[in-house]
């Protein structure tokens, strides 16, 4: 157990993480991730804060939409729908990220050379 740990630590020392981080495939990976995560995070935070902002500064959401159900309830339910939809979108996208990550790990294990 201890030996194995030592061996792993030794092996870990050999990995040049700066080189990995600067490799084109890792850079593309990070760029793809950022392109997905940043806009969607901004989107759901805006969508979320729009609800308390609109309900406390305005009253127009109180107009009826379907029968006696007003827009504010529809907006509240839309928050749930948005969460579930983003959940599914995320899973789908994350699976493609996994593939990219696996390729990078494979390269590190082969000796950290990215060509």
């Amino acid at each position, binding site marked *: 157990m201890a030996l194995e740990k030592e061996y792993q630590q030794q092996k870990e020392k050999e990995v040049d993480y700066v080189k990995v981080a*600067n490799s084109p495939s890792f850079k593309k990976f990070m760029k793809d991730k950022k392109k997905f995560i940043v806009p969607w995070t901004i989107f759901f935070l805006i969508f979320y804060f729009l609800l308390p902002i609109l309900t406390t500064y305005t009253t127009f959401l109180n107009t009826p939409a379907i029968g006696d159900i007003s827009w504010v309830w529809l907006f509240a339910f839309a928050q749930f729908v948005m*969460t579930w939809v*983003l959940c599914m979108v*995320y899973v789908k996208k994350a699976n493609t990220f996994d593939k990219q990550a696996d390729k990078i790990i494979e390269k590190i294990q082969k000796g950290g050379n990215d060509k």
Partner: protein
Amino acid sequence: MSPTVIILFLAIVLLTLVITYFAAKQTQTAGDFYTAGGGLTGMQNGLAIAGDYLSAASFLGIAGAIALYGFDGFFYSIGFLIAYLVVMFLVAEPLRNLGKYTLADMINSRFDARKVRGAAAFSTVTISTFYMIAQLVGAGALIQLLFGIDYWLAVLIVGVMMTVYVLFGGMTATSWVQIVKAVLLMAGMVIMSFLVLLRFNFNIGQMFTDMKTATSHGAAYLEPGLQYTDSLGTISLMLALVLGTAGLPHILMRFFTVRDAKTARSSVITATWVIGAFYILTLFLGFGAAAFVGESAILQANPAGNMAAPLLAQAIGGDLLFAFISAVAFATILAVVAGLVLSGASALAHDFYGQIIKKGKASEKEQVVAARTASLIVSVLAIVLALFAQYLNVAFLVSLAFCIAASANLPVILYTVYWKRFNTSGAVTAMLSGLISALVLVSISPSVFSPVEGAALFTGEPIFPLDNPALVSVPIGFLGGYLGTILSKEKDLRRYAEVKVKANTGYKASGSSH
């Protein structure tokens, strides 16, 4: 008290003890104790996260808030749910890839500094303590009401039970109690919602029409503004709810109980579906309680509305459903406090004792003994504090825990994973400025000072206007981390490259060898 209630209670308690017995046999190493050996599946862990999250405050509190305040009660449901998008998009996977047992482990994967670990452990203990007192005070009040026993006895019963789970069964027992409870709770919610909808002939539109005249608030019941009229106060509360979850130690700890980041992801997904469904159902419970139990009966049982859901069960399902829902509420409280004890104990035993005092050189046996001792210390401390905190407002304690989590923990987590320049000084200043500003602002807020005698802890004019200070303290946490970083010259780009590669790819993540 009817025999049905007693039998159902005993059955659920017995079930949890059986789980603990089997879990105790499997708990031998520190890894078993803190993270169930990292062996939970995504589905199991997702249910356990849902179990951790759907606390008595969620179940009893939100149902009561919707019953009393209509739409404004629903704000909590929305905030608590969207919070999982923050967890999913920004926190869960890097956290799993970098950490081992605790939040401090994750931050220390980038900074080998004892002061950083100490600050992280300190904020974990603070948050867990506030949260635990809130749960125990709520539990005491509930058990007291249900069984007609004294408050101190009620707190003691819950306290001893939770200690037994954690002490003997560790994370395995705690997780399985959570899973069983999450399933029971969802079943109870579905049955109650079905019965409520039955009364409205399964016509949602009709339900809204009826609710316009069902309460003393008239049509205003269905509009926002019954409870939250102040714009900045509402936004501040919503900010604490949405960002706090991603910094709550007992939720973060759950991501170490799975094998890898992929499983962590699938557990957030399961949790998000279960929690979302749950919060939709809180609406039916709240409306049902307002319509079929009535405002005065709810307020009479408990001024905060905490008894709305059990009372509704009695009104629509008779004694049997009442007994079932009460027993599930009891199991809910037990499971959540057990999870909290574990997160507090991990900070004490793993971070303070194992890493800071013993410098990571404690033997496996020493670590397990330390973990159990710390659990006992945390449990006793929480029970004693809860006995003194009987008259504190529970909702205030919970929102304070969320606020500290959002202000002290979240900035550090995000900076550690995403900011190249971030350094040791920044990590310490981020945590301390977030933690201290949240505590100070709350102590001078309307929750603590009220001009009306008896309405808050002290009588007097509040200096700070917001009940929940997140709108100010979260930016202070981020700013503290930023200033602390740029004012110190220290930086380690090589180490950041390593963290970045590991966090994003899962390469050499601890536990992946299991």
